[in-house]
């Protein structure tokens, strides 16, 4: 077993941009379908389900899930796992409004866990912005990338 101090370093990915180029709009129809899939009715006031904080930022950030894994030198087929997800809303998400994403990778830390063996912990931050470039929300996500080849 390789000790923590002797593990090869994780790829240096801190600061890589996740700025998106795609405009993301939550449609009335998809919001209704999503709400139904979770057992609730859509809001009558035009607010989208707040879980779109995650969906909108993931879909409209500058890299796909596989692309983010790729810059971390991790094969998406090896199974990235969600560690945690946090969000702070400045205002509610609305259907029919165009949003853009700005963001970056904050860090990739290699460590050993008793449960998963060697793993890289990826942290990235995304900001969802409206047409005036005002921030609607900020989210910070942590993924666990198991490095079975280093176990």
């Amino acid at each position: 077993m390789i000790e923590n101090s002797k593990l090869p370093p994780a790829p240096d990915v801190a600061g890589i941009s996740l700025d998106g180029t795609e405009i993301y709009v939550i449609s009335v129809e998809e919001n209704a379908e999503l709400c139904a899939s979770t057992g609730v009715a859509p809001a009558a006031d035009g607010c989208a389900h707040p879980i779109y904080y995650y969906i909108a930022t993931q879909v409209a950030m500058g890299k796909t899930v596989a692309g983010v894994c790729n810059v971390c030198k991790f094969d998406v087929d090896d199974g990235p796992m969600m560690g945690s997800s946090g969000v702070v809303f400045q205002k509610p998400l609305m259907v029919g409004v165009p949003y853009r994403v700005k963001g970056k990778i904050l860090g990739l830390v290699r460590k050993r866990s008793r449960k998963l063996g060697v793993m890289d912990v990826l942290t990235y931050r995304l900001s969802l912005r409206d047409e005036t470039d005002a921030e609607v929300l900020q989210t910070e996500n942590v993924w666990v990338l198991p490095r079975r080849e280093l176990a």
Partner: protein
Amino acid sequence: MSYAVGQELPAFIIESVSAEAMKKWAVFLRDPNPIHLDVEVVKAKGLGSRVINQGPANVAYVMNMLLAAFPGGRIEAMESKFVDNVYAGDQLQAGGIVTGVADGRVNCDVWLRADGQRLVISGTAAILTQLVL
């Protein structure tokens, strides 16, 4: 409506997690990871014998619990830690307890449990209950 520290929030229950809904979430998320879609892949990876629900869908159940518990309120912040997987067919219960009340804001500990016991999400949330329009 008033809230007090220690007050338990009404549970939000999903009687059985739907594999069909996972197919929809794969489209919502534009993420075709087969562990959510193909039970044979789940078995081959040694992850169990049922397809695995997408993590954000699990967060959505907790959000539903909060929105029902605070009518007219708005989620200001939320932190979710993913502790375990949710599988197709699981019965889920989202719950919470008030940990702080001040200045039109209620803070809560929140959680999601599968089949009455297994913790799958733990977290915190802040709810704005007095919205300035």
